[in-house]
């Protein structure tokens, strides 16, 4: 090995120096170039962590798809900002029959699709029937509804039961109107059996066929969706020529939004967003979201004797440290007074909130007669909503209940397998949440006995017939004042005995460059890109 000493001393160090120099050169030149890293004027960048399966309006029901579809397709009615009052859009006016079963919409006559074809009632008929017959995620929106188009500019919806919520369902982007001629020409159909025969999805993933201010430029469900202004848009022109909806994980969003201009970050938790307050180039808006985080407990003793014990249920209700959950979610979050979010008709006043009461909870545990109660709680492991991970909430729950002597074993499952056992009513306890499908209390009847969510905890009509009857009555009530009081009555009894523990409504944060206006979260869709402007 001594011979190694004879290697000329220059050759290899020289090679090494060359390599180092090359690396330095590359790094230095990139640093230089980073300076003129400017975007084309008129491009709005929306950073979000993608939840998107499709942008075929009549198949989609995911938040990211809603942003894109809302920009490309128009609906009969719409909401502005956080308001839940339906406003005219494609429909100039509408009439609702006294029994809330028949809805007649009169369309405006100047609306046209991006290819210049006028938008008529035939397109509405086609779009709505396509939603119903594709049997996809949004099909439940029009359950029990029959659509007809008596004249070129009139559309009539007939519901088999009184459906006072329908006016708040119609603004859903999944009920956006497509150009029926174009979609038909590309394999689309609105006929019965469309779930098997409709072939238009591939077309709608590469082209848009709407009447909105934007058309699709490119779609990639992993990276970005690019929209471009529709030059022939019938309504007021949008501010931005191009909108890029870009897939980025939340931590990167946090960094990016501080760098760019004309940029919006959608998925930061209020806690993350609060660290950005006071930066002059950023605007942070937090609203109480209509999403509601809760815990479900199973009422079937065959699933869990402990969970189904009413004393244990009451104990949990009073053992949860609600303010600490609210704190976890960050500034702007509120404790949920009941299962109906505070922005919707029929919600409970803040005074109805449950207050933590440890002595009472401990007494209830004792009263249950179960020596050391143990419950398994399931949660969707990789799910994060409004920047709050279910894993974090589940850990808080476990620690809260340990204080009153209830041991919680946590089991995290991927959303798919979580939903399977959850829907089958097999979870003794779950960390759960409900996001509104439409901003109406009727969407929350799922929590009353025999409802969809109640069935997941085996809370059938027989377990509380009185409440079930009340719920049925509320569903069919037409007058808003009467509805509100009925839903409040239901909410109060649920806060005493329902197997659901409403925790909080998180603050939804939206962080944008400070030159942007109207970058606000919608009630149903995360963001309405057509409304965003500049100062």
């Amino acid at each position: 090995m001594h011979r190694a000493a004879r290697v000329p001393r220059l050759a290899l160090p020289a090679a090494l120096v060359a390599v180092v120099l090359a690396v330095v050169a590359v790094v230095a030149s990139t640093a230089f170039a980073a300076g003129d890293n400017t975007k084309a004027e008129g491009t709005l960048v929306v950073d979000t962590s993608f939840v998107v399966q499709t942008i075929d309006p009549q198949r989609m029901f995911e938040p990211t798809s809603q942003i894109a579809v809302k920009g490309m397709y128009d609906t009969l009615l719409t909401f502005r900002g956080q308001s839940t009052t339906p406003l005219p859009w494609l429909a100039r006016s509408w009439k609702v029959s006294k029994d809330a079963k028949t809805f007649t919409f009169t369309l405006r006559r100047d609306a046209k699709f991006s290819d210049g074809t006028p938008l008529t009632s035939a397109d509405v008929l086609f779009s709505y029937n396509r939603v119903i017959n594709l049997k996809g995620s949004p099909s439940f929106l029009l359950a029990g509804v029959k659509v007809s188009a008596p004249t070129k500019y009139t559309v009539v919806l007939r519901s088999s039961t009184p459906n006072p919520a329908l006016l708040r369902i119609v603004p859903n982007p999944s009920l956006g109107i497509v150009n029926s001629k174009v979609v038909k020409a590309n394999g689309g159909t609105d006929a019965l059996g469309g779930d098997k025969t409709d072939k238009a999805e591939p077309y709608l993933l590469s082209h848009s066929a709407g009447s909105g201010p934007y058309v699709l430029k490119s779609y990639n469900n992993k990276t970005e969706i690019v929209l471009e202004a529709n030059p022939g848009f019938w309504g007021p022109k949008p501010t931005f020529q191009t909108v890029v909806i870009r897939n980025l994980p939340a931590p990167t969003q946090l960094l990016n939004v501080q760098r760019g201009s004309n940029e919006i970050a959608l998925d930061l938790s209020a806690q993350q967003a609060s660290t950005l307050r006071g930066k002059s180039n950023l605007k942070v808006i937090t609203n109480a979201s209509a999403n509601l985080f809760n815990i479900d407990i199973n009422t079937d003793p065959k699933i869990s004797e402990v969970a189904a014990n009413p004393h244990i249920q009451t104990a949990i209700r009073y053992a949860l440290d609600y303010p600490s959950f609210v704190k976890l979610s960050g500034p702007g979050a509120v404790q949920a007074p009941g299962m109906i979010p505070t922005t919707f008709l029929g919600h409970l006043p803040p005074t109805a909130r449950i207050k933590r009461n440890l002595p009472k909870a401990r007494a209830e545990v004792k009263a249950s007669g179960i020596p050391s109660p143990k419950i398994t709680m399931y949660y969707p492991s990789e799910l994060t909503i409004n920047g709050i991970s279910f894993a974090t909430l589940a850990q808080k729950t476990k620690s809260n209940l340990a204080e009153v002597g209830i041991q919680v074993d946590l089991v995290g499952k991927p959303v798919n397998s979580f939903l399977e056992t959850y829907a089958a009513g097999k979870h003794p306890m779950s960390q759960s949440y409900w996001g509104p499908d439409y901003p109406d209390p009727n969407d929350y009847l799922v929590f009353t006995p025999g409802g969809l969510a109640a069935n997941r905890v085996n809370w059938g009509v027989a377990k509380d017939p009185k409440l079930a009857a009340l719920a049925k009555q509320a569903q069919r009530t037409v007058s808003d004042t009467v509805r509100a009081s009925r839903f409040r009555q239901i909410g109060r009894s649920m806060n005493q005995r329902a197997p659901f523990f409403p925790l909080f409504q998180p603050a939804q944060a939206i962080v944008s460059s400070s030159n942007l206006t109207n970058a606000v979260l919608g009630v149903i869709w995360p963001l309405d890109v057509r409304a965003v402007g500049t100062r």
Partner: protein
Amino acid sequence: MSSAPAVIPEEAVVRRRWTKGFFSQPLAVVGAAIAIGWLLVAIFAPLLAPYDPLAQDFPLTQAPSREHLFGTDELGRDVLSRVIYGARLSLPLAILLVALATALGSVLGALAGYFRSWVDPVVMRTTDLVFAFPAIILAMVVTASLGPNVRNAVLAIVIVAWPTYARVVRGLVLSLGDAEFVQASRLLGSSSRRTLLHDVLPNLAGPVVVLATLDLANAILLLAGLSFLGLGAQPPDPEWGSMVAVGTQYFQYWWMGTFPGLAIFTAVIAFNFLGDSLRDRLDPRGVSRGKHQGVA
């Protein structure tokens, strides 16, 4: 192995050969010191940790301070205590799964090398199949299918790790099978089992120990990688990889991810220092190459 007392002296001979002068290497000493340090931390975690690693008693996301040297996390837990308790998870699990992989791989490899007939192709084709996947993709599919938890993560890593041992051991057995002393023992009428136990196995110990030490490092990395992806340890367990993952959600609170990451790094480098020094003893030019594939 332990059931055959005659093996012990021979093993000891082998061991003396490769441990001689081992601790005169500074790298080995440093590696051993860190590794022993982490093992002690794992054993005495309750005494060392200033707070309960699960207690959500403190203000959320506090920067490092005198009360909380590593700060607090998103639920108001003490990060230092969690890092300390993390050693209790990562180290024993890594040791367990390397032991399992070593046992499984060595036995199958020895069988394949010794009874060449049909055992060999079956074992070798299976190792091919496993090697055809990058470790983490296979482990990911296995844990995602069986459900994400520590047990399945360990199982997945064992499935990924055993073929390395099988290949190395088979190769050694094949070369030893032709060695004169083994042929001699066969000619003398020893049973297969006796030949395997007395003549072949002791000579495998050295390479397998080197491989296992280096694999401990890889096991810690892979386990942390799976937990980082949410497929390993589940909350509220203070696992290092999942702590880094939570840290990535709270970028601005750098202490949440940096300290558990440092813990992984130091634990891994300790075993790499040790394994590398061991290999040096056995094979100074570093000629033998098992497929010790780095992971995370």
